[in-house]
């Protein structure tokens, strides 16, 4: 049996059998779901209800009405800026009376009002003023109400992209943003996790002093590649398990949401009291259909695996070379890792800007250069091929990444070979560059 394969097998099995692997494989999807649910809950809970006392003499009295659930205007002639909190109000709306036509107001409160709520208050006051002006121009109240009811969200705007042959596809910027950001983030995180795993593995072998025993049986390069490929297999196994888990979880959910439940949802939709929840449920169904149908999954998924593997291979060898030169001191690892982690963090920053501008020069170069392409390209791919990324750019980026990881593996192999057998000496990057020139 091939020796590299024996090493791959050991690296893979020893990790997959570990308890921490099994736990993280099952807990990660649950953790993600909890995270989403939790952040939604926090967002809902943290919306403050603001009750504002408005003096009776306000010229807005006729038209000011509360239209949001979080800001409530109450006309209370007895309230003033000293006693509003005793009367149960959050704040007091004080008109500035320096001139008759002044439109300045001050919100007086004990605690600072949040940014979003202030925006809400401003918007409502302006709306009230606008209504008042309209009324002054002899538009009667009924007409005004019916107009505002009819115009509310009446016009929808969608973006459809058309390529030169006339093929159309509905563009969904929000969805693309989500997919691009999500997959880029996943590659970013896994690159760190599995890269660090490779580094720790190499350090363990060096510190245990088993490296020399093994390199007397196999070439150092075989040992390094065995570890890298073995851990890549661990990563792929984990992804595969996650995909299977997600499929099981969603189909289990669909079992619970049986046709009966769907009918029930449709029934309650006509009942306004509980209608809101049902609308959310149908919206979710709609969203699911949109997500499944709206993205080019047949391109995104294979590309995700390609860029995960490519990016991992590009950086794993570098992580291995760092692990091979580190001695006992973990701080040394930190400082040697910096030149490797910086480009990864940098590519994530490029992702977060290029995802809003998939055709900008930054996105273009970021998705071609192998240092950042695994993360940045996922952000562009979500907009679809060829709308977000032309085919030639995708293939060029892939080819460059393959060339890139062949180069870094060669480069790291040279450092690894010397470093793994070197004890008790602090090594600088400059010295490592010298090792490159040494022939075998």
């Amino acid at each position: 049996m091939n020796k590299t394969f024996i090493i791959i097998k050991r690296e893979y099995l020893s990790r997959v059998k570990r308890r921490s692997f099994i736990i993280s494989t099952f807990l990660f999807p649950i953790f993600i779901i909890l995270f989403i649910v939790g952040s939604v809950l926090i967002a809902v809970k943290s919306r403050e209800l603001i009750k504002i006392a408005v003096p009776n003499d306000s010229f807005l009295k006729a038209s000011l009405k509360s239209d949001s659930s979080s800001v409530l205007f109450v006309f209370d002639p007895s309230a003033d800026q000293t006693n509003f909190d005793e009367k149960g109000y959050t704040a007091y709306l004080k008109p500035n009376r320096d001139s008759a036509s002044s439109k300045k107001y001050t919100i007086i409160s004990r605690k600072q009002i949040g940014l979003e709520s202030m925006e809400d208050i401003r918007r409502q006051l302006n709306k009230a003023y606008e209504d008042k002006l309209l009324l002054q121009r002899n538009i009667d109240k009924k007409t005004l109400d019916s107009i505002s009811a009819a115009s509310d969200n009446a016009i929808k705007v969608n973006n459809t992209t058309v390529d030169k042959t006339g093929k159309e596809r509905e563009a969904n910027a929000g969805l693309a943003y989500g997919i691009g950001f999500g997959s880029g983030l996943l590659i970013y995180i896994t690159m760190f996790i599995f890269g660090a795993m490779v580094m720790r593995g190499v350090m363990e072998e060096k510190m245990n002093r088993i490296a020399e025993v093994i390199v007397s049986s196999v070439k150092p390069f075989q040992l390094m590649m065995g570890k890298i490929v073995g851990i890549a297999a661990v990563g792929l196994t984990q992804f595969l398990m996650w995909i299977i888990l997600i499929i099981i979880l969603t189909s289990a959910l669909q079992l619970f949401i049986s046709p009966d439940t769907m009918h029930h949802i449709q029934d309650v939709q006509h009942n306004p009291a509980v209608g809101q929840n049902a609308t959310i449920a149908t919206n979710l169904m709609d969203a699911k259909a949109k997500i499944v149908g709206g993205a080019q999954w047949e391109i995104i998924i294979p590309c995700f695996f390609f860029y995960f593997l490519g990016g991992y291979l590009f950086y794993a060898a570098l992580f291995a070379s760092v692990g091979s030169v580190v001695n006992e001191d973990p701080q040394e690892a930190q400082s040697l890792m910096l030149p490797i982690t910086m480009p990864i963090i940098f590519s994530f920053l490029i992702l977060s800007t290029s995802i809003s501008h998939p055709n900008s020069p930054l996105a273009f170069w970021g998705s071609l250069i192998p240092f950042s392409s695994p993360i940045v390209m996922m952000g562009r791919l979500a907009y679809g091929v060829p709308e977000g990324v032309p085919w030639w750019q995708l293939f060029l980026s892939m080819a460059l990444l393959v060339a890139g990881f062949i180069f870094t593996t060669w480069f790291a192999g040279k450092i690894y070979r010397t470093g793994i057998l070197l004890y008790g000496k602090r090594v600088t990057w400059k010295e490592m560059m010298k090792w490159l020139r040494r022939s075998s």
Partner: protein
Amino acid sequence: MPIVELHNLKKYFATQKAVDDISFSIEKGSIFGLLGPNGAGKTTLIRMITGIFFPDEGQIVFDGKKFDPTNDIINIGYMPEERGLYKKMKIGEQALYLAQLKGLSRNSAMEKIKEWFVRLEMQSWWNKKVEDLSKGMSQKLQFVTTVLHEPKLIILDEPFSGLDPLNTNVIKDEIYKLSKKGATIIFSTHRMEQVEEICNHIVLINKGKKILDGSVKQVKQDFKENLFSIGFEQMPSLNGTPVFDLIATKNDSYVVKIKEGNKPNDVLKYFLQQNASINSFQELLPSLNDIFIKLVEGTSVTRQFLREETLQK
């Protein structure tokens, strides 16, 4: 016929000449001592013989052919001085893994491991983890994994460090057995009393150069200083004699150094003429330890001396 021949081997590192033009050969079936102080270049030399390093210059001939690491590695077993094992791995699996990396098939590896485990009373260890073993136990395991694939050449770097006398004897016996079966053993150490006991042939290197090469017997002869110990029932008094110099006086014996041109018989004649009652007469050969210290110290002292001289200028 030698199993390993080294011809003008050189390996230079950026800061030092680790191995600087070393040649010697190792006879098949011998127990060969590779000696030298720390940092002499032993490990670098061994790493070249095991194919871990490639020499900058020179040639290695293994078993009559040019050394080819990829194919010859199966015939070499190497136990480095800095040795370790995977802490979290079970003993049995670990031995199996290392044997497979040497090129054994799973089945034959399994068979041999069981055989060795029975012989060294390690059967109950199979499912233990390395972190649960004592240092001596893991060393036994390392020895087993080194010789498991029945290599023609076994290289042991400080094999007894950290072993208690009992286990040292167990391993020593196994080394003799392997040698009898035809394996060649390179034994690297700076524990001279072990070398004297075990090895037939030694090479001493220092600062990357070979400074001594020969059989243990021959080396001792070469470095003898014509010292003799003469024991008496009653110590005679000594008046000056041209035959020998007195080196030391002990309770009931003299240590003397015979002057050039005289023979041991002349010493005996001298004492017999004095009617002294001699009850023992014995040549004092230097121990390898003395030779080692003399050679190694000599070089470093001269170097230091030279350096001081240049500094003064």
